[in-house]
Structure formats: C-alpha cells, structure tokens
C-alpha cells in the first residue's frame, strides 16, 4: 500500500483504526503477522562446513601378513544466523538476533591385522582388529533483542540478552573384532566373525556386548554335475548373525540427571524428567537369519535373487512412558523382543532382445511381518503415540479409539463405548444386522482397540526399459498394496473448533439436517475435542503407486556424427516424481514408516533435458 506521501508500506492487517475503512484481518491471517513482509524483512543464513581427513598405513610382513593402521577424522562446523525485524512478526517491535554455532569432531582410530593365504584351491583370509570412536560436539547459542541501530544484525548491536548457552557432548565406542573367510575353489564359501563392543551410552558393567556371525555360500553352477548351457549362475547362500544396536536413546541414556535451572540469579538444578538412573540398560541385539539364492539363466535373459529373512530384535531400547504422577516422563529401558520376517524377490527379465529392439524390466517385491513375542515383566505393555506395544501385537499396529460413524439424528460423531453403563453421551444405534450397538459421543469413553497395521501386504518397484534403434525409454515405479495410514493432516483440515483456517472440501459433506446420512459429523465449535478427536476415523488404505521417473534418450547414429569427429552424441529428456496416486488426493503417505502423515514439502517434480557429446 502507499502512504500519504506515496511511500510503500506493509498492510499488516491492523488498519481497522486507520480511518481507511479497512477492517482488521480475522483469524487465519491475524493482524500483526504477514508472511511476505516477515520473509522480506527477516534474514536467515545457515552455513555448514564439512571436512574429512583419512590416513591409512599398510605394513606387509612374513609374506602373508598385513598390518593396517587407519585414522580418520570428520569435522563439521555449522552456524545459523537469524534476525527478526522490528516491524512485524515474533521479533517486533524490539528486533532480535540469534547466533547458533556448533562444531563436531568424529575421530576413528583402527588397527587391523590381516592374514591371507591360498594353497591347493583353499583360500583363507583372517582379520583381527581394534577400533575406537570418539565424538566431541560443541554448541554455543546466543540470543539478544533490542536492535540499537538498523542495518547490523550482529549481537553487539542489541541491548538485552535473552539467552546464552553452551554445551560439550562426548560419545565414545570401543570395539575388538575378528573375521575369517574361507573358500574352496570359489565353490564353497564360509565366513565367520566375532566382535566385542563397548559403548558410552551404557553403564560400565553393562556396556560391553559380544556379537558374532556365520555364513555359507555354494556356487552350484561351478559343480561338474550341473553343467547346463542355459544356466549362467546359481548360488545358494545362508547366514546367521547377531549385532548390537545402541540407537534411539541419548548419549547419557543410563544416567540419572538434574538439569540446570537457575532461579533469577540464584543457582538452581532440577530433576530431569527423562533421565533416571538405569545401570542395567544395555545393548539391543538383532539376530538375523537369511537364506536365499541368486541365479542367472539364458545368458542373462532372466536373472534375480530370492531371499527369506527372519530377524529377531531382542531388548528393544525405548524411552518408556511413565505415570505422570511419578514425576517422570520416560525412563530408558530394554523392552520388547520382536520378530520381523518376510521375503524379498528381485527379478530382471529381458522379454525381447534383438539388434534394434530390447524390452526389459526389473521387478522387486518384498513382504514384512512384525510381531512382539516377549515383553519384560517390569514393562508388560506401553502406549506410544498411536501404537501399543504388547505381546502378540505388532509395533506397527494402531492402538486407537474405534470410530463408529455419525448419528443421522443430530450429526454427532459416535465412538464404540468403553464403558457401556456410563449414561453421559450414550447412544443406542440400530445396526445393519438389526441389533443394537451401544456407542458414545464422548471421546473419553471411546474404546481403545487395535485397529489394523501400517504394514502393507506387499511393496516393491518396477523398472521397465525399452530400447529401439537409438531411442531408450525407461522409468521407475514404486508401489505398495495394503497397510493403513493415519492421516493426521486430513484430521486437522477437517477440524472445525476454531474460526478461520483451511478446511478440506470433504467438510461440504458434513451433517446439516436431521436424517442426513454422512460420515462427516456436524460442524460444532463447542464439540471439536470430541468430534474431531484422534480415532480410527482417520485411518485410510495406504496403497499407492508412485511414478518416480521417466526418461527418454536418443543416441545419434554413428554414421551421422562421425564426420564431425564426434564419437558419441546423446539427447535426453527426463522427469522426476511424475505422479503419485494414493487413496486420498494429495496424501503423500511415503513419509514415515510409522504410517503417520505430517506437513512436509512433497518431493519436487523435476523436468530436465540435455545432450551429451563425446569427442
């Protein structure tokens, strides 16, 4: 807008009292907020510098021995400069500036001793080693407000310290390991390994774990009895191994801590609600068994692999929720033991192979099945987000209040009742079978039940390629069949508690008049907490088809280009993230394996073209 002198100024939505006859903006675009103005007037600069150093020394001795000394260091430096203006937004009217600096150094030192010998068809490869990992993270944050003179966003130019903090964190791992490989004439292969790891996330008496693995392979096609001219390769393989996992918990996971909490200028400390001493906290282990075969037939016209796996995760590390009345929020514990099993198949087929025309495709298909087989006595079950961990269930199974539908008489949202004798909000609905269902309009009396799983029946990818003369057309499709997504974004777009804000067009289907049969409850500002609550209502089939990319290229004929001394020329055009089809338009349910949607930028659609020349 222009002021009396013709100068441009921002309409911040608060011109109600300006005499210009413009009302203040209502909610959803509140006065005093302005996305464009804030983006223009604020500044943010994020810089990251990364450097790596690697050094390796090999010493060969006694013919078959090799000693290797490796050292590596990774440095990362990040700085975030952030200024918020004095005119509009969170920084107004004082103006404020933040500087966040963090640096991280990861140092790995390893010593390896290797023995390698081949004799009479036998091949032996032995390795023993020691490794240490040492990570140091430094942080420094400063935040001031009260801009003195405009044009300078450095902290000196501000008057009042809002916060000033720093931290040094350390994380260390130490490992001893060994490995043995043996093969006989490339036909029979045996491998074995044994390692011992210590991790600073666990207490001294619980931090060391011993892990091992063994594997065998048989290249059947190298056997004399299987000399078939249509068989290029056939390998049978199997392995079993145990590895330790220390993820999903903080650096000081076992320690009981008090955080700093000064009271004005008086020194203060306060119990951390997520750090209670647990010296028994130890490694989560993954025991993986797999068996499969790789094959190639008809000179590579058909090739692929097939594998069955069974992975047992023991003593899952988890921040287990505690009663709020205990003063704790979570305690780090070893919890569930669960099984993941399934098959993975990978197939490459060339349907047509001629000099001018090739049509081939890659198909990849997987299944997974998850079940909790054991819970510790101290933690027989617990609820986390939309899931509940208990024996017999899956960690991917939704634990939600069961939605029933909409009462046609008044448009109330109905849930299956937990307590059928509680009269408040109780309704009796005649179901399609003629029986009477006891339901409730109160979410707090809605019954929690397992309501299906995130896990799809099948997922995989398809990558066809067609080549005709100089043209090549290829693409990649990914897909999933079955499974459920909890569409929290849709839930918020259907939420009608407050005025203003975006809504999904499905809200047009809401109940409006007595007798309306619909699945969308009435819009009721007073009952949003019940009618739009978290429940099985927001689950939707997670099947999708994603056209990830399509590429078309053309190689110019050699005869045409050779006169310009060009050995190869190619023209191409391609598109990434071409289309995504899911049960609900616009729903991108590929975001997280937990099956819950969140606000995120969809992958950008990129269309590109170009040419390459080789001289």
């Amino acid at each position, binding site marked *: 807008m222009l002021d009396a002198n013709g100068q441009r100024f921002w309409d911040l939505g608060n011109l109600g009292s300006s005499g210009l006859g413009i009302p203040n903006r209502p909610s959803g675009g*509140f006065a005093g907020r302005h996305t464009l103005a804030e983006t223009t007037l604020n500044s943010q600069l994020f810089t990251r510098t990364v450097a790596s150093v690697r050094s390796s020394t090999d010493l060969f001795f006694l013919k078959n021995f090799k000693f290797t000394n490796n050292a590596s260091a990774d440095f990362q430096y990040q700085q975030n400069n952030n200024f918020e203006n004095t005119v509009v937004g969170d920084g107004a009217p004082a103006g404020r500036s933040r500087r966040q600096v963090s640096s991280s150094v990861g140092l790995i030192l390893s010593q390896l001793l290797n023995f390698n010998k081949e004799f009479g068809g036998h091949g032996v490869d032995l390795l023993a080693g020691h490794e240490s990992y040492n990570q140091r993270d430094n942080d420094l944050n400063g935040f001031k407000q009260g801009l003195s003179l405009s044009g300078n966003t450095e902290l000196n130019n501000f008057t009042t310290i809002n916060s000033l903090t720093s931290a040094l964190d350390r994380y260390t791992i130490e490992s001893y390991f060994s490995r043995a490989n043996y093969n006989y004439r490339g036909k029979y292969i045996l491998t074995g390994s044994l390692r011992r790891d210590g991790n600073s996330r666990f207490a001294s008496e619980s931090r060391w774990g011993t892990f091992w693995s063994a594997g065998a392979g048989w290249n059947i096609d190298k056997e004399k009895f299987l000399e078939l001219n249509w068989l290029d390769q056939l390998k049978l393989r199997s392995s079993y191994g145990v590895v330790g996992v220390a993820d999903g918990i903080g650096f000081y996971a076992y320690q009981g801590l008090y955080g700093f909490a*000064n009271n*004005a200028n*008086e020194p203060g400390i306060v119990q951390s609600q997520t750090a209670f001493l647990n010296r028994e906290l130890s490694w989560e282990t993954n025991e993986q068994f797999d068996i499969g075969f790789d094959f190639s037939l008809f000179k590579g016209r058909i090739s692929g692999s097939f594998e069955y796996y069974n992975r047992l995760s023991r003593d899952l590390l988890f921040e287990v929720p505690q009663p709020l*009345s205990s003063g704790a929020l979570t305690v780090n514990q070893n919890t569930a033991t669960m099984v993941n099993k399934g098959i993975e198949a990978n197939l490459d087929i060339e349907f047509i192979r001629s000099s001018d025309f090739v049509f081939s495709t890659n198909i990849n298909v997987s299944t997974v099945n998850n079940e909790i087989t054991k819970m510790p006595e101290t933690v027989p079950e617990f609820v986390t987000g939309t899931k509940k961990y208990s024996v017999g269930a899956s960690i991917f199974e939704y634990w939600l209040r069961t939605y029933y539908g909409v009462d046609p008489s008044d448009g109330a949202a109905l849930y299956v009742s937990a307590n059928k004798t*509680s009269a408040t909000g109780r309704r009796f609905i005649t179901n399609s079978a003629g029986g009477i269902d006891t339901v409730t309009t109160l979410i707090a009396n809605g019954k929690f039940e397992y309501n299906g799983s995130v896990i799809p029946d099948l997922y995989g990818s398809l990558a066809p390629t067609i080549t005709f003369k100089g043209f090549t057309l290829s693409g990649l499709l990914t897909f999933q069949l079955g499974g459920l997504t909890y569409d929290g974004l849709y839930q918020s777009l259907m939420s009608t508690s407050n005025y203003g804000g975006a809504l999904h067009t499905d809200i047009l289907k809401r109940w409006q008049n007595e007798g309306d049969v619909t699945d969308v409850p009435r819009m009721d500002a007073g009952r949003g907490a019940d009618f739009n609550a978290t429940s099985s209502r927001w689950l939707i089939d997670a099947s999708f088809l994603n056209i990830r990319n399509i590429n078309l290229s053309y190689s110019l004929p050699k005869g045409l280009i050779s006169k310009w001394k060009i050995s190869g020329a190619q023209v191409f055009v391609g598109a990434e993230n071409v289309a995504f089809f899911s049960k609900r338009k616009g729903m991108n349910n590929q975001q997280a394996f937990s099956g819950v949607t969140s606000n995120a930028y969809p992958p950008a659609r990129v269309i590109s073209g170009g040419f390459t020349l080789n001289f």
Partner: protein
Amino acid sequence: MKITKYSFLALIVALFFSACEKEFLDTFPTTAVAATDALASTQNAYAALNGMHRIMYTQYDAQGQAGEGSNNIFRDLMGEDIVYPLASGSTGLIGFLRWQSHRNVNDGFLRYMYRFYYRLISNANVLINGIDATPGPEADRKIIKGQALAYRAWAHFQLVQLWGKRYNAGSPNTQEGVPLLLSNTLEGQARTSVEEVYTQINKDLDEAITLLAGYTRAGTAAKSNINVNVAQGFKARVALTQQNWAAAATAAAASRQGVALMDTTAYVAGFNTVNNPEWIWGSRQIDDHNTFFYSYFAYISANFNSTVLRTQPRAINATLWEAISASDVRKKLWDKTGATVPVPPGGARVPYQNKKFLSQSSSSSVGDVPLMRAAEMYLIEAEAKARSGDNAGAQAALFALVKVRDRKAVQSTNTGQALIDEIMFNRRIELWGEGFRFTDLKRLNLPLNRNGIPNHLTALITVRDIPAGDPQWEWLFPQDELNTNKAIVQNPL
C-alpha cells in the same frame, strides 16, 4: 635383520593392545549434573530447591504453559470474569473458556497441569526424604525441608481441588482424591480419598511451619522462597476450602503478619514486581529467562506484542466492573473504552479492557508472577469470619483492605449473606486473573452462571451454565496417566 623384524612385531602387538584408557567410555553431560549430586551437600540441596522455584514459571510443552501463573489464567478463564471480547480474535486457551480442556483426556494443557504439580512433588520428595542425611548446617537442612514440605502440601492441594470431588465439611469425604506421593516411585499409584489427601496436606504444612520458624528470606529472588508467612497462607487457603472457618481466619492473619498493603500508586503499576510490599510469595523473572511468547504476561498483560494479546485483549466481566465504586482504585485496572490501555503496536482496543497486568515492555514478556498477596489474606479472614457468623470481625477485616483501595469507603454494615456477597465481590475484583474463581465456585458448591454478562460472546464461550455439583467440576485424568498408571480410576464422564 631379525632384530628389526621382531622389534617391528612387538610394535604391532603394542599398537594392537594399546586399548584406550579405562575412562574412555565414561562420558558425562555438561548441561546436567548427576542426580546424586542434589543431596551431596546442603549447598547443592539449596540449588535443588531453587530449581523448584524456577519450574514454577519455566516453559513446558507449549506456548501458554508457564507454570503456576498460566495455571491461574486457566482457572480464571473457567469463571465468569475474564472476557474474550473479539469473535474474530485469537482463540488461544479457549478450551478453558469453553470448559473443554479439563474434560478432554487428550488435551495438552490438561496433561501439562497434571504433570506440573507432580513434577514439583517429585522434586520435593527427593529433598524431604534425603535432606536429613545431607552434610551441612542444621539450620539449612530445616529451611530446605520446610520449604519442600510446603511445596508438597501445596501441590497436592492444587491437585485435589481440581481432580477430586469438592471437600464437604461434615461428611467423611471418602470420595476419590488424587494419588498421594510421599516417596518417589515409578509404580502407578491409586487415588487416595479426599479426606486422606487433606490430612496429609495439613500434616506437611504444620511440619513446614515448625521448620521454617525464624527463617528470613534473602537473595535477589527472596520472595520466590517459602517462609512462614507463605506456609501460613497455604494453611489459610486449605482451611477455607475445608470450610474450617476458625483455622482459616487464624492462619490468614498469621500469613499477612508484618506485610503491608500496597498504595494506590503501586496498585496501577502493573502487578509485575516482587518488590511490591504486598506480595507474600511470587516468582522473580529476569531478562535471560527467555520468557518470549509463553509466560504469564504473554497471556494476561495489556501491552505485550503477541498475536494472542494483540487480537484478543483480555477484558473484565462488564457487570462486575460497573459495580465497582468510582472512587475505588481497582476500577482503574480496566478501561471502559479501552482508550487509555497501552496496547502493543497494532493491538485492538475493546470495552472493559484489562490494564491490570503490564509486562516489562511490548517487546518483553518478562514480569514477576504474583502468587500470594496480603489482600487475599484479608479476604480469607473476612470470608471465614462472615461464614462463621462473626459479622463484626468480618466487617473489620474487609475494611482493613477496602479502605486502602478506596479512600471514600466506609466500613460495611452488612451482615449475613449480604456481607458474604460483599466479600466475594471484593474477592472477584481484587484477585482477577490470579487464579481463584474456579476453585471458589467449586469449594462453595456454586454453579457457573455467565448469563446476563453483556460482553461475553456466545460464539466464543459456548457454555453459559454449569450446575453446581455437575460431573464437569471434576477434571479428567489425562490419557497419558491412564495409559501408564493402571491403578487410576477415571472421574465420571
């Protein structure tokens, strides 16, 4: 040659077994200390006590969750006297205005409040149960234990008032109260009867009063500590809720002992400093406490520049304001037209607009949080005496306060219910925004009645009446507690 070879081998072996030092895997944070350090000395225990003072006003999970100051706003929003005047303004905290947040098991604010009080109890228990064995001067141990006991009593009191059915003197009060946590355990505890909870509260308070005798608060945040006056103030509030009129009057008088009422100049200065002589207990905030958009003043002040306050300034119940005498300084805390309110840049002006609370500036929501003032103690004494039939005593206690607020005031000659009504009216205007209205209605078994208040908007409040004794007076236990504590029985829906 051989020698080189072997010495070389020895070097390799040495390198190989040059395992790191034993301490290599012992790492400790720099932003926290070991829990055991809290009881290593009385000096450390003092720090743990200061931490409790701090979590009275620190930020929790979301904006508007700033400890007891915020809780006071929530409880007052559930009464008649805080008005959201603009239909298109911010709907921040509207779940309390509509009587929804406390009855929605998934509500983040409900969870936060329940968590807040038990967090204090858990920290208090560490000190109460461990301080006797902590090395240091005996006098320090008494002060620390006394304050921790008072905190534990107060936190249980706040919980039982909200989650339990009201205390009814003369009945056995066997109705379900709240879990009583006297030592820390991760095992879910069942609810204890309302009577038992109050018995323990009084026991803790009596012990605290004994231990805190002679203690003089010191330091830059002195008033955030609990001394005998504060503990007696707790006792007065508890006794009033238990309808134990005699004890309430005695404790209230003891609580304001040596505390002066503020003058009319201080009264209109914004209710934001612990230096105010009338404050018995309050949280002290300083600039680098990072209050931003979450603090008490970010949700109740007239002048802080946040979307919440710019677009939805707080106003007072118009009927209540009109009833205040024109010569009463308290009338100046709200502006009938909004014209004199120091609104933030672009802030709305509305009728009956609040200017009682002022934050440090429009760009800083820093401000000390009032938690107990002498005025409340005069009002407790007056109410307790009036309800027990001591009209003269009640009139005198009330006048001791009113004469300072209104120079033209004369001592009330009302008796009986009229006197009680006059005292309750004074309570509403004196303590507006300080968190008493919901619990006053509940302890007195009164209905919520917002009818006839012209500036309440039906579209915003949605609820005008809640009958006395309705199940909605009991707060629901949050889903996170039900998930983790199998011993909890939910309140009737």
